[in-house]
Every structure is written in structure tokens, then in C-alpha cells.
């Protein structure tokens, strides 16, 4: 894939924006709360913990979004960069739908990583490997993954990561055919349902054997 200067700039600024909406999440705190026993304070409240975490994440991301906008505007103003905009409104709409799916997808991935705290002490190590290293590389946060060799790209597409940041940005740049857009939305949706099921299953299993000691 050939990237022009404006494509690269749009991609980098897009990563800043999507990173603040999709990747930055406070669900990582849940793992430590499970380990410390602090989670019991939430469990006895008449509120769904997942809904609480989701509401907190949305509030957090609205704030992130504001800061990301300011950051992007400053960069555009200082360096006088120009960004590529989608050719039509339909692409913008599809982009936004994809971002919403990606937002929920990452929310669930991050929750699963935190829920693993029910069984393991190595919550930060697990998150470092899957939620930082693999996620940053395979989701296209560090560089667009389509510059990688085809064999590696095929492997990366078997994971949910490219649907978080890379796919929405490719749709925004208008560099992918309609089949790709449809496939990307469907596969993301599949991952979303799969991770929803896994999250619920693990949460129920984890709570069954959970014991928190102390005050």
C-alpha cells in the first residue's frame, strides 16, 4: 500500500483520536480491584458493575475526546498540515458505526484481561503482552499494518486487533473497497458477540469461586 504524506498525517492524527475514544479505558482498574477485594463494594450495590464501568468509560472518553481535539488542532495549526477527509457522508457514517463497534469491542477485551485476575496474579503481565504490545502493533497504533508482509497480515487479521483502529482509519482514508468495509463490520460484530459471551461466562465463573478477605 502506498501512503502519500497527507495519508500518513491523517493516519497519525486519526490514531490520536481513536486511541482516546477506543483504547484509553479505565476497565484496567478492575483487575487490581478484584485482587485487593475492593470489588465487593461494587458487588453489594444495586447497580450492574458492567453498566457502571461502561458509564464511567464513556464519561472518561468524552473528556479524552476533548483533549484529543485540542491536541490535533494545535498540531494542525503549528505544522500547517492538511488532512484527508472521506469522499462522501456515507463513509463518515460507516466510520462512526465502526468506531462504536470498536469501542465496545475494546471495552470487552479489556474487561476480559481484568477478569483474568480471578485466577492469576499476573494481571499486569498479561495486559502488557496482550493489551499493550500485541494490541499496539496489530491494531495499527504504531504504524499502518498493511505495510507488513502479506503472510503476517493474514495472521494479524485472524485476531480482533486490526478492527479496533486500523480498519476504521482505512475506511476514513477511503483506501479500501466496499467488500472490505462490509467484511470488517461483520467480523468486528462477530468478535463483539464472541467477547460478550466470553466476558459473561468468565465473570460468572470467576465470581463463583471468589473470596475477598479483610475490611
Amino acid at each position: 500500500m502506498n501512503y502519500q504524506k497527507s495519508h500518513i498525517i491523517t493516519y497519525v492524527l486519526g490514531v490520536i483520536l481513536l486511541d482516546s475514544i477506543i483504547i484509553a479505558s479505565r476497565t484496567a482498574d478492575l483487575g487490581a480491584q478484584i485482587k485487593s477485594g475492593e470489588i465487593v463494594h461494587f458487588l453489594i450495590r444495586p447497580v450492574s458493575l458492567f453498566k457502571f464501568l461502561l458509564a464511567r468509560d464513556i464519561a472518561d472518553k468524552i473528556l479524552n475526546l476533548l483533549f484529543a481535539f485540542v491536541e490535533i488542532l494545535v498540531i494542525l495549526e503549528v505544522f500547517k498540515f492538511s488532512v484527508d477527509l472521506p469522499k462522501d457522508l456515507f463513509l463518515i457514517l460507516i466510520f462512526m458505526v465502526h468506531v462504536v463497534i470498536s469501542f465496545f469491542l475494546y471495552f470487552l477485551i479489556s474487561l476480559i484481561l481484568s477478569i483474568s485476575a480471578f485466577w492469576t496474579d499476573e494481571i499486569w503481565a498479561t495486559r502488557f503482552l496482550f493489551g499493550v504490545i500485541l494490541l499496539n502493533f496489530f491494531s495499527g497504533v504504531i504504524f499502518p499494518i498493511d505495510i507488513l508482509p502479506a503472510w503476517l497480515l493474514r495472521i494479524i487479521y485472524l485476531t480482533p486487533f486490526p478492527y479496533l483502529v486500523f480498519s476504521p482509519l482505512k475506511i476514513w482514508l477511503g483506501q479500501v473497497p466496499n467488500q472490505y468495509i462490509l467484511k470488517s463490520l461483520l467480523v468486528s460484530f462477530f468478535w463483539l458477540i464472541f467477547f460478550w459471551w466470553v466476558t459473561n461466562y468468565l465473570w460468572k465463573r470467576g465470581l463463583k469461586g471468589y473470596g475477598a478477605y479483610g475490611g
Partner: protein
Amino acid sequence: MEDDAKLKIKNEKLKIKGVLKLIRVWLMVSSRAAQSQLLTNWAGVLFLLGKVIRFLLFFLFLFVILGKNNSLVGYTREQVILFFLEFNLIDITTQFFFRGVYVFRPLVVSGNFDLDLLRPLPSFFRPIFGWTDVLDLITLIPLWIYFIWFIIFHNLIFNSMDVILFFFFLLNSLIVAFSLHLFVCSICLLTTEIDHMIMVYRDLTNMARFPTEIYQKGIQFILTFPIPIIILITVPAKALMGLLSWQMAGFSFLIGIIFLKWSFKFWQYSLKRYSSASS
């Protein structure tokens, strides 16, 4: 005159003894940290795996970039790889030595830093050297071996003077890195904020993963003078390849001394304004 000379020698001996004592304490602290880390085997394996994957993926990225042109801003493929390897060496070495910064905030917020100030150690010892990640050491050893093999195999050294200069500027890099970490700790004392500051530092150093000539002149200026990332990472690599001008060499050395002096002054300034957070 003779008494003065004897007194001076005595003072020097005491200083050396003090440094040796600090090294012994650091070795003890590092050994305890390693024992604690190695108790949780899986965490170590996962962290190590993550670091290796990150290194390999960046390496792959480098090959993809260099795939068509075989050069980047006038540097050959081997020279660009050398910059990348040397970035990793300095980055991991500084993390290995100065990992304490990452666990300093809880000490300040809880007020437990007061207890460290009572100990017969320099006040900056715990904030900077208070934690050592043994995984960094495990990563460093094969990286050094590969680095040495790479420069010998590709004939990237032309004379022994370049090697001496390389090690000299590597030491200078550690001094600059120490100063930057101490600056961050000083800000933590004043504001209890450290995590974002250290992330900014990490992001800026990441800019030197590749030859810094790829950036505009203005950005290069910022990365040399106010935030000396180029001196921290690019200068030793250039010294090794014999590409460092004597002006830049002198300037880098000067920046190292100035930053060290300023960081200690700023640390003292922050210490005077430190009020225990919880007591």
C-alpha cells in the same frame, strides 16, 4: 602544604568509599527485587515475551521501510539498524538502572518517602534506584551480544578511538538520562504527578528509534537543546560510526554536565518545598 594534600587524599578516599557503599546497597536492593520478580515465573515469562515481540516487530518494521530504498536520510541499511539497536541498548539500560522512578509516586502520596529521607543514603537514591527490573538485564545481555556481533560483522567500526568515544558518550547518555529522571522526580515532589511526565519522556526518546535527521530542523533543535534526546541516543551511535563532529562531541559533553548540575539543583529546590502528603 603536605597536610592539605593528605586531607585531599583522605577526602577522595572517603568519596570513593561512599560510592562503593552506594553500589553495595544498590546491588542488595536489585537482588531483593530480582528475587521478588522471579517468584512469579509466569509474569516474568509474559513480560519477557512482550519485550522480545516488541523488539522483533520494530525490527521487521525497519526492514519494511528499508526494503525498497536500502537507505534512509543518507544512512545505509546497516547504519539505520545500528541506530535502532543502540536506541534499544540505551533505552533498556536506563530503564534497568532508573526503574525506581516508576514506583516513586506511591511513596510521595503515602508520605512514606519521609522514612527514606531519614536513611543514611542520598535523598535521590530511593526515587531513582529504588527498584530494578531483572527482566531488563535478561534482555540486555543478548542485545549486547547481537550489537557487538552486528558492528563487527558489518565492519561498522573504523578505529579504536571511535569505540572509546562510544563508551564515553554512552556514559554521558546515562548521566543525561539520570538528570532527566531526577527532573521528573523533582516535579513529582512538587506536584505528586509523575506517570504522565515519564510517559512524555518515553515518547520523546522513542523519536530517536530511527536517525533523527528524518525530522524537520526545528524538531531536531528541540530534541538537541531543551530536551536532549539526540545527545541521549543519537550521539553515541554517531561516535561509534565516526560520524560525530568535534563541535557536537564537545557540546554533548557540556550538556551532560549542565543537565546533571541543574537536575541536582532542582531536586534540592523541590526537597525544600516537599511536605509529607499524608502526615
